């Protein structure tokens, strides 16, 4: 779907990421991991085609449709929009006159049912909980029927039960050959949900698998501190050593 061939990516000189060599296939579930400012957003902008490489090449298969799932607190809650209006908004926004077709409404209804927000469809987004807001953002992305989902810290600010419920929903996004990019500072999330992990470190991108990450010392190299790895009931967990 996208091929990075020795690509330098950024907004000028020096580039944020150097010599990126990667191939991303349709249907992959990819976690993006690394400290703040390491180039995750730059990489995603290159995936979207919003920035061109300053050196090397980025080849993108034409036509994939992208949908972005923002953090719950990124959405502008001053707008008096209901959950249903938020889910329908992209379809309306992309049509002249802002009128949703029957097909758009059917898709929105299905997306709300799948995301578990149908019972709160007519409530204002600003009046529902953080977890429900995040589910609404996922419903909005589902309703766009994209080929690729970009999720930015989808569990930020959620309590543990809301996080668990949301992750079950996120795990289902890659069904049907959809590609999922998941950015998270909570390392256990991509380690459990993604089949492939991209580690961003000092201007380079290291492609790995969750199993390799747990076996190797790569997290230690990236974050500069030792980590404790745990696995219980098939669930992986990593925390920096001494974190108590």
């Amino acid at each position, binding site marked *: 779907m996208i091929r990075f061939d020795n690509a330098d990516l950024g907004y000028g000189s020096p580039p944020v990421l150097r010599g990126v060599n990667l191939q991303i296939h349709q249907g992959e579930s990819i976690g993006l991991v690394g400290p703040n400012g390491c180039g995750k957003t730059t990489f995603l902008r290159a995936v979207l085609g919003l920035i061109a490489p300053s050196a090397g090449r980025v080849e993108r298969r034409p036509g994939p449709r992208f949908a*972005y799932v923002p953090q719950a607190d990124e959405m502008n809650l*001053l707008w008096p929009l209901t959950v249903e209006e938020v889910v329908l908004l992209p379809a309306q926004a992309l049509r002249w006159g802002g009128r949703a077709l029957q097909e758009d409404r059917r898709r929105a209804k299905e997306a709300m049912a799948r995301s578990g927000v149908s019972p709160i469809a007519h409530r*204002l987004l600003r009046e529902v909980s953080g977890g429900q807001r995040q589910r609404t953002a996922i419903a909005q992305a589902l309703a766009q029927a994209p080929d690729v989902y970009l999720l930015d810290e989808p569990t930020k600010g959620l309590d543990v039960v809301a996080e668990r419920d949301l992750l079950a929903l996120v795990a289902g996004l890659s069904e049907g050959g959809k590609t999922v990019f998941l950015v998270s500072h909570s390392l256990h999330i991509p380690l459990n949900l993604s089949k492939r992990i991209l580690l961003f470190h000092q201007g380079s991108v290291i492609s790995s698998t969750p199993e390799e990450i747990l076996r190797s010392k790569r997290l230690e190299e990236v974050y500069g501190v030792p980590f404790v790895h745990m696995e219980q009931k098939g669930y992986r967990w990593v925390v920096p050593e001494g974190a108590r």
Partner: protein
Amino acid sequence: MSFLALPFMRTAFVAGLFAGTALSIIGIFSATRSVAFSGLAASQLAALGGVVGIVLGLHLSASVFSWSFVVAGLMALAFLSRSRKTSADSWVATLYVLGAALAVLVLSKSPRGESEALGVFFGNILSVGTLEVWEAGALFVLTLVGLALWFRRWVWLAFDPMGAEVAGVRVGLWTGIFHVFFAAALTLSIHIFGVLLSFAYLILPATAGLLMVKRVRRLVLFCIVWTATATAVGFDLSFRWDFPTGPFISALLALGALAARVVKKPGDGGN
């Protein structure tokens, strides 16, 4: 005697009604983006453009100058706000100060400086003619057409700009088109009513509406009705009690926003 009995007041009222309602609908986007003061800076730049046009003796081109200054100012603001070392608010303040200071400096060299300054900052209702009524009417219709076609797109850009960009909306283009409408409404309103009332129309009806109603469509309707009512009441009472019209309507709109805040306590719903 009603103010409607005087032809010049009638003309100014109709022009103000059109320009004010157009501006109040557009102002929903300023109020919801928490960028109210960029509206004030833009108003000041429009005033500066008008002053430059008048001082250069290009009276007919004053509106073109105002419009150009607003568009240039909004573009400059977008560029300056990219800096991560300063807040966007600092640049809004910078443009406001620049616009206000330069307008006063330019006016100080104008032979009719004081009277023109009053016109720029508080408007000149007496100067409104049939042409302005047609311009305001056309602006009102164009604003409604623009909103009918692209309202949801602009809402998406204000609600979740990254989501819109990822889905393929050309953010720069559509923000630019919105700014053209914004600048046109602001320019005309400043020509008729000056900086104070134009800024009031831009921010205060939407602020009250966000408190009073719970649906986007009702918010648009609220802004139209609220603005029209405040304008009619303001014209009538200022005429009866012999007050300047622009500041009178501005005070009414500000009191209305404060009243909405008192009526709707935090957590209260609207309709």
